[in-house]
């Protein structure tokens, strides 16, 4: 087999129609053995649909796919797997079975394989699992319950399982969206190894740096069409331009590269004054002040204590130590209800698990935190609810399929970015004193990100905002200053104007002489 062999997968003129809209339109794409092709595009560009067609979850309306020279028309995901297509989905926990061990998870597929016998033995499971774990350098103990593992370890289990089936084509759908950058680097290494072994990889991500790092070719989808195909080395700006089209200018204004947000006059008295707080028991206490109109970024690797910090301020977990004052008054919320009553708002990290109520409309999501506000003589006023929902939709530019989202549209019909606009927007609508956002840009496309950032800057003039993100780039252009956490302690604080990716990375990895970070 030579390097310039036949493509493993060859997509030609592929189209997929849902009702009146074309989710994919005449997509043509080849992936050769050992090649990693990046697939990028804003939410709704057609990435998910393309993955679904290739993984057998749905059938194309027209066009052909050839896999290793044969026509590939899977009737379902099992057909696709049998043909050698493995897909690792974004939601890691869909891929592991809770309540079982690492070894059992690694060998899950052999349960359905013919000839594996009627009984499983612990010894055989372990032997098989050890082999699979070695292939991705998974160090977790095989007997550990899978729920005790970190997100990245769980993900490696899923990937290990996919790899153990020796796929021809491996599809990775935003595999790093829940990982810290160190963990992501590990993953990228694994992907490179696989490619070196001759597997064709389709790598879907929102993170440009990874695509740049990993891919020799990147395909940019927009509105279901291949807008551009760029070959390495490519210009990041060109990629983003192709992704955004018209939205590019908005993005530029919203968050230029390393640009600090426009200077504002901040009041002297802080909204939030926390002294001696910690992200974990036994950690180094630190102080935190946030003034009205100020946006403070908090960054750090996954597990550095960002969520713990925010949840303590929201009463979702007990305050481990210190004094907190909100608007000059002592503040120690027993539960989120008390926090909301005191004017604190929180948008949690996991959108679907922590914010979305299945089946509910945009309106019902907007009004849930403030039902009392829409109460008229004991009854909820639909009119008042619709008013609030319409405000959020308008301010944040919440879009549904084909136009502004109707307030009665079910949340599930919106893309991730638009759902996030609703989840963040509903709190801003309540004019809180303090707004806490945990990973508000996860799984959110650049366009929606810019919309959210811009709207925060415009409408949060008298709100103190704390934004936590494990990707500091997301904070540039949005935050006035950035706090860096490392293993639960405050590693440093940088004004946005001085923040460089290099400086942030140093603090995040604990490399620069931060207190408590010295070994």
């Amino acid at each position: 087999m030579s390097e310039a062999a036949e493509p493993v997968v060859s997509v030609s003129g592929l189209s997929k129609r849902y009702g009146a809209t074309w989710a994919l339109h005449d997509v043509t794409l080849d992936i050769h053995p050992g090649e990693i092709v990046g697939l990028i595009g804003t939410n709704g560009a057609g990435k998910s649909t393309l993955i679904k067609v290739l993984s057998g979850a749905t059938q194309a309306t027209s066009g052909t796919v050839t896999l290793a020279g044969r026509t590939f028309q899977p009737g379902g995901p099992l057909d696709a797997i049998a043909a050698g297509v493995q897909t690792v989905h974004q939601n890691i926990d869909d891929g592991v079975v809770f309540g079982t061990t690492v070894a059992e998870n690694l060998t899950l597929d052999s349960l359905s394989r013919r000839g594996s016998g009627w009984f499983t033995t612990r010894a055989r499971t372990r032997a098989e699992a050890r082999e699979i774990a070695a292939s991705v350098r998974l160090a977790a103990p095989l007997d550990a319950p899978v729920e005790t593992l970190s997100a990245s370890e769980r993900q490696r289990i899923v990937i290990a399982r996919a790899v153990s089936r020796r796929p021809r084509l491996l599809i990775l759908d935003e595999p790093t969206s829940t990982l810290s950058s160190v963990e992501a680097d590990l993953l990228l290494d694994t992907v490179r190894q696989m490619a070196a072994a001759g597997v064709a990889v389709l790598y879907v991500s929102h993170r440009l740096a990874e695509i740049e790092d990993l891919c020799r070719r990147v395909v940019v989808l927009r509105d279901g069409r291949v807008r551009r195909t760029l070959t390495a080395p490519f210009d990041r700006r060109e990629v983003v331009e192709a992704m955004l089209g018209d939205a590019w200018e908005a993005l530029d204004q919203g968050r230029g590269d390393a640009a600090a947000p426009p200077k504002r006059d901040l009041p002297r008295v802080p909204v939030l004054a926390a002294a001696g707080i910690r992200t974990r028991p036994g950690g180094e206490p630190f102080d935190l002040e946030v003034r009205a109109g100020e946006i403070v970024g908090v960054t750090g690797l996954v597990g550095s204590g960002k969520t713990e910090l925010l949840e303590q301020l929201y009463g979702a977990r007990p305050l481990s130590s210190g004094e907190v004052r909100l608007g000059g008054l002592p503040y120690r919320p027993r539960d989120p209800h008390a926090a909301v009553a005191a004017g604190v708002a929180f948008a949690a990290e996991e959108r679907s698990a922590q914010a979305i109520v299945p089946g509910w409309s945009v309106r019902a999501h907007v009004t849930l935190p403030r039902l009392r506000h829409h109460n008229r003589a004991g009854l909820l006023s639909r009119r008042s609810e619709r008013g609030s929902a319409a405000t959020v939709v308008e301010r944040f530019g919440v879009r549904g399929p084909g136009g502004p989202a109707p307030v009665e549209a079910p949340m599930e019909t919106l893309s991730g970015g638009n759902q996030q606009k609703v989840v963040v927007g509903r709190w801003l609508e309540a004019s809180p004193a303090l707004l806490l956002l945990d990973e508000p840009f996860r799984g959110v496309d650049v366009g929606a990100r810019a919309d959210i950032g811009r709207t925060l800057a415009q409408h949060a003039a008298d709100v103190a905002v704390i934004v936590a993100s494990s990707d500091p780039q997301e904070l540039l252009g949005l935050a006035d200053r950035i706090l860096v956490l490392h293993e639960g302690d405050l590693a440093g604080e940088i004004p946005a104007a001085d923040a460089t990716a290099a400086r942030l990375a140093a603090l995040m990895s604990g490399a620069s002489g931060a207190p408590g970070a010295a070994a």
Partner: protein
Amino acid sequence: MTARAVALVQRYGLVVVLVAMLAVFSLVAPAFGTYGNALIVLQSVAVVGVVALGVTVSMTTGGFDLSAGACVGFVVMVTALTMVRFNLTGGTAIVAGLIAGLVVAGINVLLTVVAKVPDLVATLGTMFLFQGLALIVTSGQSVSAGMTIGGSPAPGRYTGGFVWLGGGTVGSVPVPVIVFAVLAATVFVFLNHTRWGRALYAIGGNAEAARLAGIRVGRYRATAYVISGLCAAVGGILLSARLGRGDVGAGDPYLLQSVAAALIGFAVLGANRPNALGTVVGALFIGVMINGLTMLNAPYYTQTFVQGALLVGSLVVSYTGRRERKTT
């Protein structure tokens, strides 16, 4: 079937079947389609319906009140004892019955909200406790006027006012039917048009999202059980008044029938979740079917099977091909 047809069946299937059943029974049995018989059907489902409304509320938060039937039986005993054994007024019996319902609810709340026992097994435990307690306080005997207690006859009897709750009418409408109607309307408005109802559904849909939106989940879950207990108590009072005595095990059939009514209600108008209107339709469905079959001389022992078939059919309608859920 196309997706559209499936959606139509999910939305209107049950209502169409109910209307068709009414039409067929009216044609085949001329006595069925009369005003008098309609009142009989309503009277027969009133107690089940009242209990089912409570079960429906308990289900909104993702809970499940299996103790509702036992609560009905316990309240029947408590009201009978209050009047017969302790010779107190009907009003006192009503208050005692409601308090008994609150006690059952209190145990459910302690178990589920405080001790964090899963709802299904917790309320199963409560069911056993109160079935047993009803037997203990009456020494396993039925309570009726003139019974002997320790050698002497019981001093009291059911008061006229209390009996009126079970057998009386306003105009031509039986009192239990009126109570059912009022309670149904109240629960409907409560669940669909108040912030408390919205919060209950939010908890049932995604408890963590509700908590992080500032809703005090524990309190609402407790409230749901309290409402369920009170509804079961009202059902028990109506049943006691209709029986005119405290029968051992009087409440036992009410659990399955009320749960069936509430679950059948999931399939009404494509709600796919516990809802007051659906529960009323579900209760009527059961009542109409039993009444109609009786008129067609179907033997009584086929009733349970028919109810089971009805329940299974509705569950298939509401759970199969479940994609779109009712939006709030």
